[in-house]
């Protein structure tokens, strides 16, 4: 029986990235995937007639350009097209838009507040300063501040150095930024509700915190630190849907000789004599490997797939204390035509924008209060996009695909488990909210796929449907991610590695965890790294 150099569990984008870099370095790698399709949460699914849905992740910015380039993803079919702008509809019939063009954006902010429009300059400089700080560490393994090994000390010194090279007050601002709530942070710059709500969205997407919870300023950064071709903070569409990302990485992997097996659910990671030996599949097959890399989130990896007896109790306790909280839902909608938004100017560019229907921090925070009470938000924060305006490949001509990401949606309801009726009621709340701003929207709906944490967990395997595979709070970032002492992609058993978004630098279609894990594996094997370094200052 064949023994692979490595088996990667889960063909999500991080698993594929990890596998691709290992294969590129010459390893014999197998990726096993429970579903009959690859991609995990970066997929393009054909669920209704000729429509393609990016039915989980739906936009692309975080994918590290270094990885894009090193894996030659363009050659493997990936094309990311930026989209411009963002709009927040106000309850009074007005709207706030932001634009790619700096001057138009300023003018539009100034329409709501001249002061805030000018304050935005300082705000964006300060956020960019934080972005620059974090970006350098995305493709690096977090140091263990408690080990005092030379490599960790070097990495710590690097972080310390980057911090200290800022001017004194900028360091303190950095500490503030990393610990503040996005709401309170924005209030230091802006006076206008709709502007604050417009900017705060990125601080709550994917997280079980409200805009007034400390730590959400960092969550905003997590959504700003990406780029499209050097435009930091810009987002784009993967042509053909987010599955194009996974397909391209898989293409790269296969071009290096890798092998993918779908419909191969792992039931157990086999450990013998303190070392990983391979995996057992649900169908009873066993596959041998010298090392196993899990792209499942840490709770699934250690509390479900691994045998508890192979693990230290203290480690298990720490994994149990890792917080993966379901807070989001998703609607994927096939439309018979383009809905209109009467609040927008005629022929506005903002039709391309991501759209939001909640115009104050208070409404956002109340949406979170609902989540705490284990109900879906009655007045939710929706991040809505119509990718087909930009990408002609995802729906028949004249027809459209609409993606609605919804915050908040709890993993479990006060009434107990989700039922289909609950799910439909949740979907209706979202549709009703959008319809308030688009009178023809409801009539254009041909098909709706509603996904609550229940569906996301069952289909994609994300615990509670959490898009980041673990909250992005300070206690779960950097050297704390996923658990202290195990932030360097190595599991607690020899030969076991982690490469999911539960590891540094966390979730989003970034591919950095997969790449970083590959670097550590190759390092343990004393092989030359195939993983690129950061492009550096920009």
């Amino acid at each position: 029986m064949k023994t692979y150099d490595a088996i990667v569990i889960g063909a999500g984008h991080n698993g594929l990235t990890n596998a691709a870099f290992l294969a590129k370095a010459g390893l014999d790698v197998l990726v096993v995937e429970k579903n009959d399709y690859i991609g995990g949460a970066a997929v393009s699914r054909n669920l209704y007639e000729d429509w393609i849905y990016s039915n989980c992740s739906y936009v692309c910015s975080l994918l590290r350009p270094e990885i894009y380039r090193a894996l030659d993803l363009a050659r493997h079919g990936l094309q990311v097209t930026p989209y411009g702008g963002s709009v927040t509809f106000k309850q009074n019939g007005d709207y706030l838009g932001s634009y790619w063009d700096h001057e138009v954006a300023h003018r539009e902010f100034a329409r709501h507040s001249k002061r805030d429009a000018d304050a935005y300059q300082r705000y964006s400089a300060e956020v960019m300063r934080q972005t620059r700080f974090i970006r350098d560490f995305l493709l690096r393994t977090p140091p263990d501040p408690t080990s005092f090994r030379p490599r960790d000390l070097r990495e710590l010194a690097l972080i310390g150095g980057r911090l200290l090279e800022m001017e004194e007050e900028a360091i303190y601002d950095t500490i503030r930024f990393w610990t503040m709530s996005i709401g309170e942070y924005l209030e230091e710059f802006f006076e206008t509700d709709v502007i604050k709500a417009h900017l705060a969205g990125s601080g709550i997407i994917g997280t079980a915190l409200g805009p007034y919870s400390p730590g959400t300023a960092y969550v905003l950064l997590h959504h700003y630190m990406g780029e499209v071709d050097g435009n930091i903070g810009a987002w784009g569409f993967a042509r053909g849907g987010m599955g194009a990302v996974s397909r391209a990485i898989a293409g790269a992997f296969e071009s290096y000789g890798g092998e993918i097996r779908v419909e191969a659910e792992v039931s157990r990671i086999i450990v013998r004599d303190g070392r990983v030996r391979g995996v057992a599949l649900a169908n009873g097959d066993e596959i041998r490997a010298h090392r196993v890399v899990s792209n499942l989130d840490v709770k699934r990896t250690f509390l479900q797939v691994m045998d508890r007896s192979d693990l230290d109790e203290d480690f298990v306790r720490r994994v149990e204390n890792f917080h993966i909280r379901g807070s989001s839902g998703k609607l994927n909608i096939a439309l018979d035509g383009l809905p209109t938004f009467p609040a927008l100017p005629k022929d506005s560019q903002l039709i391309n924008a991501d759209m939001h229907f909640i115009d104050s921090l208070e409404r956002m925070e109340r949406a979170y209060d609902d989540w705490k009470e284990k109900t879906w938000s009655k007045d939710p924060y929706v991040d809505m996009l119509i990718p087909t305006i930009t990408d002609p490949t995802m729906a028949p001509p004249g027809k459209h695909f609409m993606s609605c990401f919804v915050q908040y949606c709890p993993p479990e309801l006060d009434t107990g488990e989700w039922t289909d009726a609950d799910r439909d009621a949740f979907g209706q709340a979202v549709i009703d909210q959008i319809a308030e701003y688009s009178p023809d929207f409801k009539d254009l709906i041909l098909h709706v796929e509603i996904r609550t944490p229940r569906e996301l967990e069952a289909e994609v395997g994300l615990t509670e449907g959490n898009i980041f595979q673990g909250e992005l709070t300070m206690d779960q970032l950097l050297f704390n991610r996923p658990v202290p002492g195990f932030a360097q992609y190595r599991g607690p058993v020899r030969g076991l590695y982690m490469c999911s978004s539960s590891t540094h630098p966390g979730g989003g279609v970034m591919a950095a965890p997969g790449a970083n894990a590959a670097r550590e594996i190759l390092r343990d094997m004393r092989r030359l790294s195939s993983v690129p370094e950061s492009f550096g200052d920009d």
Partner: protein
Amino acid sequence: MSDTATSERVLETHFHSRTAEANYRNSWQDWKGYTTAGEYTAADLEYFAVRNAAGVFDLCPMTKYRITGAEALPYLDRLVTRDMTKVKPGRVAYAVWCNDAGKVIDDGTIFHLREGEYRLCSQERHLAWFLDAAVGFDVTVTEETDEVAALALQGPTSCAVLKEMGLTGIENLKPFGLDHFRFEGAELMVSRTGFTGDLGYELWIDPGHAELLWDRLFLAGKYLGVQPIGSHALDLCRIEAGFIQAGVDFLPADEVVRPGRARSPFELGLEWLVDFRKPNFNGRRALAAELRRGSTWRLVKLDIEGNKPAHHSYVYAGRRKQVGFVTSAAWSPVAKANVALATVQRPAGEPNSRLFAEIYYQREMHWSRMMAACQVVEKPFWDPPRRRATPPANY
């Protein structure tokens, strides 16, 4: 749809009907969201209008603020580094304002329109800062960019043009003075200011009279060589005059992301604008400390050998040691000199010292490199006596 929706198109200035008609080249630039002429006919020739006769430049997109209230003066005095108590009504002052760290946020001109009433005019927008600075002062700061139409009239015949237009007594206006005139029922404010280092005026009027003002100016200047000039020509003039520009020769301190990229007034050659004898002003403590400790950078004017403009050049002390870079460069037609503004790390750049500029230039697709010797000069490359003469000569 909201009736007041923001236009997603670039805006037109109050003079657009006229500048569009004059823009033979159809050469436009987006300046702060407004469409303005890059060049009307030929930038090289427009430049000579300023040095030889008079050029008219559309200033509308310059950011303008009105500052009023009982404490407008102490407010401004705390805001900027120079002593504003010396700027009497009817006078204009060039000033810089700094952040807490003593780094320059921007420079601009402050017009003391009437007792307790000021206009501040700058390249960048600062309402948030100005309002933050207003806390604790009895003062009102409002942005009025779009409510004021402005033109620059610059060049040796400019005074004659205004006289011809009927602005009686304009010849008595001293440099950095301002006066109000009646113009077709409107109030026309004229200041003897500009961005060309030459004799020149700036004209400020309500937007309803903008087109008429343009027409009258060109009518009056018909035999005095008046021509519209675009931003390319103006840029050349301001480099010759040694004027720095935000976003080019320094970055507004509140927009700087990387450490060490902001500059203090001392580092921009503007120490003459910093007055420690007056009460507290923003950045004072940091600037006092910088004065004790010494500054890091120095902005220098370079007179460079040869005739190849030193665009984007590295600057060296000796042949090897890179000490800085050029931020603005031009061949000066009027001074017949190869000039540049550069930022160098101290101690390099002492007056009259010698530096080298690494110049890349292209001839018929091929690039060449040269190390050109430069002299650090103290005086502007162009500073004619007519700039200061009062009354100015007619030509």
